């Protein structure tokens, strides 16, 4: 017995010593770091060389593509964040960029892990992550910076924690909003100082407009438009199917059509007039050669109509007229397809007007565009022109579009990985094991600590409305990096108590709140009608099979016979050929 004890004790002692020495080392490095936190590109480079922690994996987990890479990589690898199936190889699932191995991409089915930008289909997400961490960037013994949408729900965060800490057994993790990373990159690399700015993230599922004041997200003015690249592709697919050629099951190809030929019009009325002309006067109409996956692997815009295109002979050709600019126009006028919402430019204006008055002109000077939709030609110019006409004359308006808007958030993560403050933002595996998912949820959900504030009618600065019990704590430290509050657990419970008493006192007079709930209910019903629309169209197609020569619906039954070994608990209803 004594022997066994003797065996154990030194081990324990060793452990204690090791952790102690670790801590002291990290403390030393922290104190040794320069106190000037202003990170110009050159200093951050030297910081990066000094960074002694584990190597860092940065994962911008978008709803359509994941941007992944280690902090030492030059740029991110863009991997489709989905599982795909094709008609030509029925037995095989293509995970992520495995799809490059496939020759015939007609009739591509998508299995997307996200719904409206939130990861909900874990049976899809997990294999994609497994694939990426095995084949693209290894995750073992690394710290992970991962992105999540604003207001990522608790259940989703819990599952993410579980997967990363328990199954991948990573060392430490940080989940941030991609807008935060973009803001970090913009402030440090472009503006050079901590300026207020607005980040517009126009992605696959939705578009968010997030203002940053004093380096912190200003939640009361944050807005989301439920229009993203997915909706544009679906819309283009539908109008082409009705006007020319049945392409309802060719989402992948139509997505390429969108990327290759669509543009944002700077003068919509004039472009529309030109699109109405006949013959050579119409400079907008273009022919798009669809791929046949035999000679042509990717479709392209036919440049000159007169010149004989030998490859394109016998190929299907789409004639794109006003579709080229009316589809991206949905970003600016969602009301064109019955979505009762403002467009991007108007939304930015509303966002600016919901911010404190003295910050408004400064916000207009720093507008950052990111996300895949920014790659439409003319997008930046259009945002600028619209803002210029909406905002007062004496304000200067400046719109910044980064070189690569898709990987801009990833680049922000890369520069953040060299930041000496990073260590204090991470939640380590030990912390997770000690304090559980509630701790990580509280840590990564900065909206929980956001200042409760005004609505649009009363856009005054809002410091007064923060419970004084929170503000008066002297030992409360704030991160100026993301505006996260480091709240000790006692304080937290106190502030929670304060909140709950606030809530009780205000419950009786919460008329405006119920109004808000009604509003959101309306919005939801409009959303569901959007989702339902797809289905409606499908049903119409079904009844018009002869008209459209539809082959899709004959095959839906065959889906049931797919090899299901890797998705035992699989619900085949989620098989869809469009981005739903």
């Amino acid at each position, binding site marked *: *017995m*004594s022997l*066994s004890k003797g065996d154990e004790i030194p081990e324990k002692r060793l452990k204690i010593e090791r952790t102690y020495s670790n801590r002291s080392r990290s403390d030393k490095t922290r104190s040794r770091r320069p106190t000037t936190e202003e990170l110009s590109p050159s200093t951050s480079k030297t910081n990066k060389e000094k960074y002694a922690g584990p190597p860092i994996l940065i994962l911008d987990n978008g709803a359509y593509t994941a941007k992944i890479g280690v902090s030492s990589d030059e740029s991110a690898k863009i991997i489709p964040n989905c599982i795909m199936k094709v008609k030509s190889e029925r037995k095989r699932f293509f995970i992520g960029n495995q799809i490059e191995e496939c020759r015939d991409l007609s009739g591509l089915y998508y299995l997307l892990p996200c*719904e*409206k930008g*939130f990861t*909900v289909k*874990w049976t899809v997400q997990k294999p994609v992550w497994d694939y990426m961490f095995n084949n693209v960037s290894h995750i073992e013994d690394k710290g992970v910076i991962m992105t999540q949408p604003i207001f990522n*729900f608790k*259940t989703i965060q819990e*599952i993410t924690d579980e997967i990363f800490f*328990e199954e991948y057994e990573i060392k430490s993790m940080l989940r941030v909003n991609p807008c935060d990373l973009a803001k970090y990159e913009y402030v440090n690399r472009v503006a050079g100082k901590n300026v207020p700015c607005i980040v517009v993230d126009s992605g696959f599922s939705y578009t968010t*407009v997030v203002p940053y004041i004093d380096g912190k997200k200003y*939640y009361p003015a*944050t*807005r*989301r438009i*439920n229009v993203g690249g997915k909706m544009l592709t679906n*819309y283009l697919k539908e*109008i082409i199917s*009705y006007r020319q050629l049945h392409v309802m099951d060719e989402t992948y190809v139509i997505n390429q059509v969108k990327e290759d030929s669509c543009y944002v019009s700077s003068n919509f009325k004039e472009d*529309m007039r030109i699109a109405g002309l006949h013959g050579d006067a119409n400079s907008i109409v273009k022919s798009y050669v669809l791929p046949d996956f035999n000679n042509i692997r990717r479709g392209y815009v036919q440049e000159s109509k007169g010149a004989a295109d030998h490859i394109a002979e016998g190929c299907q050709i789409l004639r794109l*007229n*006003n*579709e080229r600019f*009316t589809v991206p126009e949905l970003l600016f*006028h*969602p*009301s*064109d*397809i*019955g*979505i*009762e*919402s*403002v467009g991007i430019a108007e*939304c930015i204006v509303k966002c600016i007007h919901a911010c404190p008055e003295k910050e408004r002109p400064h916000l207009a000077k720093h507008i950052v565009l990111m996300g895949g939709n920014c790659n439409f030609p003319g997008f930046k110019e259009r945002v600028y022109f619209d803002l210029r006409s909406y905002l007062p004359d004496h304000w200067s308006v400046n719109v910044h579009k980064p070189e690569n808007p898709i990987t801009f958030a990833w680049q922000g993560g890369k520069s953040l990985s060299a930041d000496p403050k990073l260590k204090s933002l991470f939640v380590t595996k030990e912390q997770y094991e000690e304090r559980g998912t509630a701790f990580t949820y509280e840590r990564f959900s900065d*909206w929980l600590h956001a200042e*409760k504030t005004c609505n649009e009618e009363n856009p005054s600065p809002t410091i007064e*409305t923060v419970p004084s019990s929170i503000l008066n704590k002297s030992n409360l430290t704030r991160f100026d990096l993301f505006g996260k509050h480091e709240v000790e657990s006692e304080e937290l419970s106190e502030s929670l108590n304060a*909140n709950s008493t*606030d*809530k009780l006192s*205000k*419950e009786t007079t919460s008329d405006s*709140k119920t109004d808000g*709930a009604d*509003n*959101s209910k309306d919005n*939801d019903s409009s959303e569901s*009608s*959007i989702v339902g*629309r797809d289905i*409606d*169209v499908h049903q*119409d*197609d079904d009844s*018009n099979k002869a008209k459209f020569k539809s082959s899709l619906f004959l095959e839906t039954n065959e889906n049931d016979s797919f090899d299901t070994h890797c998705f*035992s*608990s699989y619900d085949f209803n989620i098989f869809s050929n469009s981005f739903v």
Partner: protein
Amino acid sequence: MTEFIKSEIRPVFKATTFQHTSKSNNKKRAWKSLKQIISTERSLQWPENYVHYSSINAPPSFKPAEKFSDLSGLPAPYTDPQTRLRFANKEEYGTLIGLPMDITAGYLALRGASSIVG
């Protein structure tokens, strides 16, 4: 002697072959749809003026929506009262009146105008 005590002390309720189930891969995860998640979130008691997922939806625009032809996408000054489809010129009207019901309904749905009241 030590061995004897050791075997006595060893807790019998701990199986040596025990493995944590959460670490195996075939654990079934709760798969809630986003709608369920949002509705549970909405049912929570939020403090007044608290910003959460549903409250950052962009407000509706004050500008009236412009009208475009359902068939060609061009600006449409006219609406067919029977099908409620919009059209730009008389040629379009010619094709429009020949369309079967389900197609016109599809066009309306595409524009998001399929509801009866709208």
